[in-house]
């Protein structure tokens, strides 16, 4: 792609889906899929490192395997000017199924990278229809949010420890659906300030509502968006710097 050279690289911010089969990719595999697609796209990408060039790229925090998302964020760095719509088209043609560009935006290269901006993730959780009652879920949500601390035993490959997940849960709403089911809307710490995983909240909440994990395993989870908290407002990194939106910290 022939482009006008730039005095300093531009940031190309993309909002992507990770759906269908792509939801089974690990974070490393998803990031690899984006890097390979970026190189296929012919966009004027910026590389780092002299000896073994590496594509410059910043990703939003990992999505648990199996969870679908319509709001993954990626920053690429361009050394030549390409209109955002053109960049979106070029990438859309070469991304594997399940990963789609929803939105693309050009920003100044000196803006903070997406990986350093995000601190909150919004999830929607749909437990299987027969799992608990709407009332049980509502009571559990009220109890959860009214506590000062909620302990959870986090099992990781190398260590297991008890953590307090309460402070990482910023929103927990129960929406009743027609029929019997509910949808849980969660806003959780994710990114620079630490991470609470949706499954952790579901497990605790299920315990309070009297629903076993065995049943809850069939829940459908989607990540709806990734944000940066500004007071009690959630701001999307796609909107940062736009007129009317909050300016990112550290600028101006």
């Amino acid at each position: 792609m022939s482009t006008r050279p730039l005095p300093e690289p531009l940031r190309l911010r993309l909002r992507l889906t990770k759906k269908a089969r792509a939801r089974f990719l690990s974070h490393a595999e998803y990031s690899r899929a984006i890097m390979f697609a970026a190189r296929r796209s012919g966009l004027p990408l910026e590389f780092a490192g002299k000896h073994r060039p590496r594509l410059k790229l910043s990703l939003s925090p990992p999505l648990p395997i199996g969870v679908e998302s319509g709001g993954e964020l990626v920053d690429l760095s361009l050394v030549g000017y390409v209109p955002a719509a053109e960049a979106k088209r070029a990438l859309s043609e070469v991304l594997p199924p399940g990963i789609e560009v929803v939105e693309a935006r050009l920003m100044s290269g000196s803006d903070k990278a997406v990986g350093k901006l995000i601190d909150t993730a919004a999830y929607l959780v749909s437990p299987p229809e027969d799992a608990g009652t709407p009332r049980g879920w509502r009571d559990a949500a009220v109890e959860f949010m009214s506590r000062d601390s909620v302990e959870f035993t986090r099992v990781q490959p190398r260590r297991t420890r008890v953590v307090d997940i309460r402070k990482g849960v910023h929103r927990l709403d129960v929406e009743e659906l027609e029929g019997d089911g509910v949808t849980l809307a969660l806003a959780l710490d994710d990114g620079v300030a630490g991470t609470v995983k949706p499954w952790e909240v579901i497990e605790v909440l299920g315990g309070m509502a009297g629903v076993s994990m065995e049943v809850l395993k069939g829940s459908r989870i989607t990540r709806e968006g990734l944000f940066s908290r500004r007071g009690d407002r959630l701001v999307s990194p796609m909107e940062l710097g736009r007129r009317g939106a909050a300016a990112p910290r550290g600028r101006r």
Partner: protein
Amino acid sequence: MSEQFPGGVWERLEPLLLEVERPSRYLGGEWNAPDIEEGGTRVALAYPDVYEIGASNLGLAILGEVVNDMDGASSERVYSPWFDMEREMRTAGVPLFTLETHRPVSGFDIFGITIPHELTYTNILNLIDLAGLPLHARDRSAGPLVVGGGCGAANPEPLAGFFDLFALGEAEESLPRLVELVGLARASGWPRDRLIAEASRLDGFYRPSDYEVAYNPDGTVRAVDPVPGASSSRVKTVVDLDRWCLPRRPVVPSCEAVHDRVNVELFRGCVRGCRFCQAGMVYRPVRERSASLVVGMADEATALTGHDEVSLCSLSSSDYTLIEEVADRVGGICEDRRLALSLPSLRMDERSASIAGGLAGGGRGGLTFAPEAATDRLRRVINKPIAESDMVDAVVCAARAGRRRVKLYFMIGLPTETDEDVFEIAALVYRLRDAVRAQGLAPPAINVSVSTFVPKPHTPFQWCAQDDMETIRRKQDELKSGLRSRAVNLSWHDAGMSVVEGLLARGDRRLGAVIEDAWSAGGRFDSWSDHFDQARWREACDRAGLDPGFYQQRERPLDEAFPWDHLDLGVTREFLAGEYQRAMRAETSPDCRAGICIECGACERLDRAQVLKGRWP
């Protein structure tokens, strides 16, 4: 997408994906994965190891495209499910499936399994079983033709009972003929055994049940005789590389694969004549690809995949006659696109090191050489007569190019090896390091990788004995105490694995029972040291009443009949025997590219001439 295909297992597979490590291994739908149309002749091509190993296999990538380029035929990929997925599949009753359409392999017309090496034999049996097919060819009356191929088919005899057919040699031309025959069989309503019988008459195919093996009282082979009506086709096929510029659109693996790069073949075959090397004997003659085709393939494949590295590969890349020109032109493409270029399998001399040392994006990574043996005498025995001064030049050149690592491959247990030969490995490594220092350069870190010699069929060393466990271990210990420097990193092969490899490599049909036993005892992924269990093989041999030492540690008399003698891969037994005798006298043989044919038999028997695109130096 597979959901469109009737009879696919995707819906049953999907819930299992969250129960296993790396679900991406089973997804398919990768970039450049072929679109499959329904109908026609269906081929499933399998690699008997896990996805990230198999996805790098060049041969299967080529054959998949060959079939998918045909009208009325399609080819899909299959890999071994990892332990966790096998458990889930068996519990849920999900049969072996392909990645493209997730349809059961049992419904395909051809089930091709490549045989990469001996330690995949249990995985091969597991694939057939997971597909829901009877393990033994004689018990199969329906389902796909189970066809073996690849370099492991050089001696397919231990696996003879499990396959309907073997493809001998390069299958770019023979596989389409088989696919066409299957189409014809379907149109004409032939029964399965008629189809197999007709297929065994095609060039490059061998039906093991066409031959009967008789044994002497001492356990050696007396004769391998054709049964009445057997086909005489047991000659391998070879192709012209300029006619087969594949793969054109390599599939991009969804996770990092073992060889995670675009691989472009420079040439097939190698006539350096190293006497331990099976590939160097069975892929003859040398056929180089035109430089402009190599450059074009590298250009297109990198653009179509997005890989960040290109590798110009072959059995001995720096032997390509136009290597400077090609490295230069492909290097230009790589510099433009910020890709790395690598040349694996370099000859250990200054010319190769200086070409490889200056490659684009090579940076400070390592260079790899294979001196194999540390003394001049032993290098003459194996016909790899590299002068020590060439080795010094290569390592100095790598250090001068700023390379921080050099990897050296050696082998222990080679025929005629003495304690001194083993001892000299450490001494040579130190001499090379000191020579770099003497030039005032910082010596690179040296990784020494020591494998154990395994005598292979169709090589001049097919008559030789292999070391037993204790000897291998003792030599490895000697090396460990000799190479204690912090700048040298020593790695070696598991002795037990080498012994099992040796048992199977020159095996006969009686070993089929041993493989089956090892597999039923849980044998899977034997080439993974965590999963290899030598006891399983020892017990299987005991139960079959076979002595592993008979196969593995016995030196064969010159006139002994071998289980693979009836398979013609080009080089003649007389040539191999002559080379064996020269080896015992530590005499070398020349490379026929210099202009003098040493009559190995390949060109004449396979009716192909050597193809060089430039001048051999």
